[in-house]
């Protein structure tokens, strides 16, 4: 259940999600936050088992902080996705998989990145991506109106449209839309803070 989307732009990244948490045929929550901030430059959109995803996000937060303190410079988006994927892979190989598919979105020295980390431990880097039960519908929208050289404002609009379309036809998604933007500028803010 769920619809989440992520779009990479020249100005950063945009993540979008619905707000429904399903318990079988019952709507467990109508105000679920599926986009979790890791820090000013990184966020994760969650599809799948919320408890598994929360645990992975907490662990990656702690690991990122430790790595940054130890080596003295920030962890990239790709490295962060790899930390998550390594957990997922270890889980899979131990017959205790994490039932998640996460969209990792963030900015680093190279600009914005959208990475998909699934329960098999695979990572793919994408221009745009979607996950969850509503993703086939969301992809339909994204494939038809996504184009390169978008601004964050344009990407927000497209992300909203994609999630809205999925909520119309997918019973696992609904109850409103959350959109988060991470502009490339947030990297400067973070560096200045240090």
């Amino acid at each position, binding site marked *: 259940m769920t619809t989440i989307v992520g779009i990479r732009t020249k100005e950063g990244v945009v993540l979008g999600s619905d707000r429904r948490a399903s318990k079988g045929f019952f709507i467990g929550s109508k105000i679920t936050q599926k986009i979790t901030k890791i820090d000013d430059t990184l966020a994760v959109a969650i599809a799948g088992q919320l408890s598994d995803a929360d645990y992975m996000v*907490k662990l990656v*937060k*702690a*690991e990122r*902080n*430790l790595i940054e*303190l*130890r080596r003295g410079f920030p962890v990239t988006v790709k490295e962060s996705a790899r930390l998550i994927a390594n957990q997922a892979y270890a889980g899979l190989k131990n017959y205790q998989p994490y039932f998640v598919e996460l969209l990792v979105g963030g900015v680093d020295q190279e600009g914005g990145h959208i990475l998909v980390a699934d329960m098999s431990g695979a990572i793919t880097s994408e221009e745009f991506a979607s996950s969850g039960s509503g993703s086939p519908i969301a992809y339909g929208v994204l494939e038809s109106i996504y184009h390169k050289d978008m601004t964050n404002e344009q990407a927000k609009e497209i992300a909203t449209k994609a999630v809205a379309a999925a909520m119309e036809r997918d019973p696992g998604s609904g109850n409103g839309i959350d959109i988060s933007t991470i502009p490339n500028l947030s990297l400067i803010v973070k560096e200045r*803070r240090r």
Partner: protein
Amino acid sequence: MLPAAAGYDRAITVFSPDGRLYQVEYAIETVRRGTLAVGLKYNGGVILAVEEKTRKLQISNVTQKIFQVDDHIGVAAAGYIPDARSQVDHARFFAQSNRLIYDEPVDVEGVAKNIADMAQQFTQYAGVRPFGVALILAGVDETGASLFLTDPSGTYIGYDAVAIGAGSDQVTEYLEKSYKMDISLEECGSLAIESIYLVSEDKNSTRNIKMAVIDTNTKTMRKVLDEELESYVKLAKQRETAKGQ
């Protein structure tokens, strides 16, 4: 070494007949011979400052004696610095574990106690040596700004202002006379500079001084850059001339 102490300064687990652990005392002596480190509270946070002698060709923008443990906690060390790196790494892990388990930033006393616990263990077990370093732990938590000192024996004590390393007796005496509660950041910064100049050979430049501040508003440790450091030196000089008149 006098025969009275013969043998008792070898194994750390063995008390001497007069109830002393010589290896631990030697470790504390290592701290005394290290370069100066100070920690001072002000009315909106806490300052760490160290004297760090850099050779002419050494890359001096990398601080050797001040460490960041978490966003809101920093450490200044005196003594055998490689041991500090080991203790600091332990503290970093402890701080992140606290975030992982409780979803909360760790409190400063908790970290001080954790470091002290480890130091104590290294005074009791065979085959190990005590840490040759004392740490000034500074941070901001729900109790406000907080400052602790840990030493090789495993003692940890809270302070408003503290100095360790070579010349720390003189500096402590000076601080006990001239430190006041609720001073501003500027006053505190200049007091830290004064403390280091008190025992330093170079009493003019900021070349041998490194400083970090943790503010109660931002709850984040930041490095004090040269320009700001110079302003504290200026203030320290002003106060010195005012006192001389």
